[in-house]
């Protein structure tokens, strides 16, 4: 086991301000505070080499959890062990075995070409020059960023920058990758490339990947295991398939450009197609009745999109 989290909690003290100018003035002299429980009694274990997705609405506590796992924040209660270390102690061996990539923050030196940031990280992580050159070559080839290594970071596109952020974060060959929304703001093609890279990196190195994302495609493509955090508590820990089966077990049978007579079998027209929503058990029976009457139609069976599954799941929780 590479990550062991037991009863993890984090409480922030935040100032409460009344409305408007009067509230601001009052808060200046008599500030009221409120405790916000960002993470409440969360426990889970992650095995070496796993790819795990953290999912939850904004403010659910995903990033706070990642920051506690990487040693940036000290937990209010509970214990965390990552690669055998207590993150908050920030010992050298621990920091060298993890990395954290934050899609909304950057570590690259803004005014200098990315290779200067890489060289600085090499020194700070104490990477042997030969190993550094080898790793850098491999990462540059995997991400195809050779042409941009000399350009100042401020002149790079968001996607190019994220690729360089990944290189900077991986030069020391960490065993655990914490990725906080690594694809945020990227165009679809760049998202696909980053996803592919993370997948390849995980399979070729066996490094453990813990990822948060708002893009369901990231989760669907990358992380077989899902931890759903909502209002600071861990609501689900298991596979994506099992969650979908539980929350949205129905299937959509879509007959492309199907005949209107399909209405007899419970189909309704949607954008020129005929669509029926059925239970998983019902699917085969319904399919064979369609195919026995219209053997030549083009037909597809879909699970509800992940966005819909999650929306329903969170709604279920708040209802």
């Amino acid at each position, binding site marked *: 086991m590479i990550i062991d989290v037991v009863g993890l909690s984090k409480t922030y003290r935040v100032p409460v301000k009344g409305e408007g100018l009067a509230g601001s003035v009052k808060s200046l002299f008599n500030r009221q505070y409120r405790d916000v429980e960002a993470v409440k009694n969360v426990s889970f274990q992650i095995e070496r080499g796993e790819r795990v997705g953290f999912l939850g609405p904004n403010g659910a506590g995903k990033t706070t959890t990642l920051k506690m796992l990487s040693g940036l924040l000290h937990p209010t209660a509970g214990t965390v062990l990552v690669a055998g270390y207590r993150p908050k102690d920030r010992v050298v061996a621990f920091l060298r075995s993890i990395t954290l990539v934050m899609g909304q923050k950057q*570590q690259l030196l803004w005014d200098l070409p990315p290779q200067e940031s890489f060289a600085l990280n090499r*020194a700070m992580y104490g990477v042997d020059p030969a190993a550094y050159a080898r790793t850098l070559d491999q990462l540059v080839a995997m991400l195809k960023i050779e042409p941009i290594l000399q350009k100042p970071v401020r002149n790079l596109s968001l996607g190019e920058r994220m690729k360089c952020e990944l290189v900077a974060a991986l030069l020391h060959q960490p065993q655990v990758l914490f990725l906080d929304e690594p694809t945020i703001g990227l165009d679809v093609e760049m998202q696909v490339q980053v996803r592919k890279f993370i997948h390849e990196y995980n399979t070729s190195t066996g*490094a453990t990947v813990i990822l948060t994302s708002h893009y369901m495609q990231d989760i669907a493509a990358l992380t077989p295991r899902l931890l759903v955090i909502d209002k600071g508590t861990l609501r689900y820990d298991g596979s994506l398939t099992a969650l979908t089966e539980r929350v949205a077990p129905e299937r959509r049978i879509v007959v492309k450009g199907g005949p209107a007579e399909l209405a007899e079998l419970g189909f309704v027209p949607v954008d020129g197609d005929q669509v029926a929503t059925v239970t998983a058990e019902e699917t085969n029976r319904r399919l064979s009745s369609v195919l026995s009457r219209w053997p030549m139609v083009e037909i597809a069976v879909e699970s509800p999109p992940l966005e819909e599954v999650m929306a329903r799941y969170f709604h279920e929780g708040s209802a």
Partner: protein
Amino acid sequence: MPPAGGPEALSSGPGPRLPEVLSALARVALMNALQYRASFFVDFFVGSGNVVAILLPLAVVFGKTDSVAGWTWDQSLLVTGFFLMMSAVMGGLVEPNLGAVVEGIRQGQMDYILLKPVDAQLVASAQRVAPAKLWDGLSALVVIAWGLHGTGWPGFGPITAAFCLMIAGVMAMYSLWLLVICLSFWFVRVDNLRYLLGAVADAGRWPVDIYSGVARVFLTVVVPVALASSWPAMALLGRLDLALVVQAIAVSLGGFAFARWSWKRALASYTSASS
């Protein structure tokens, strides 16, 4: 790619080496400073005038009188010289870095400093330089030599004492700065305190004896700028005994230890800007 955590894994290796880290940081700091040509040359040009701006009021005062609070023109030049030296170190090496820490806490880059397996205080204190402050350092040497030309050159003992006091004084000022920066972990914005500190530190350009009792103690102990400017000058002039020198050094070491302890405490309550 080789397997993570395999035989090549870094976490089992020797770890970062300090000289290598320092030279990498210095390299980046210099490259950053050289990145914007226009600003570099303007700063460098303006920086060369600082010594004139500091000497002018002194010359005006001594145009009217031969001695101020027991200090002659030549002796006051020594104070000015050490003040320039302190301002070179503080303005060139300390303030640009610690100022960036405040910004880093507000915007989140502090996260990445804390994630590195190198002492966070070291990285936070060594990422930037202001090369224009080199002028202050060079002119400090000239002004001190000019003063000594008038007062007569002291022996090895006073020079050593003055040198140690200067280091101690700069260390005390650095510690004070670090304490102010620590406050920003809780209060986030401490700009006003920084400006105030800068303004108070400016009082160090005058011999400390011109200030009244309370102010003198304040400038020696609370904002110990006199420790870095007047005290080394007094050491050169043979006005300090060894016990005082040792005490001053001990106090500044204590101040440094306290600032470092506070820094570690501040890191523990770091809340990290949310993304």
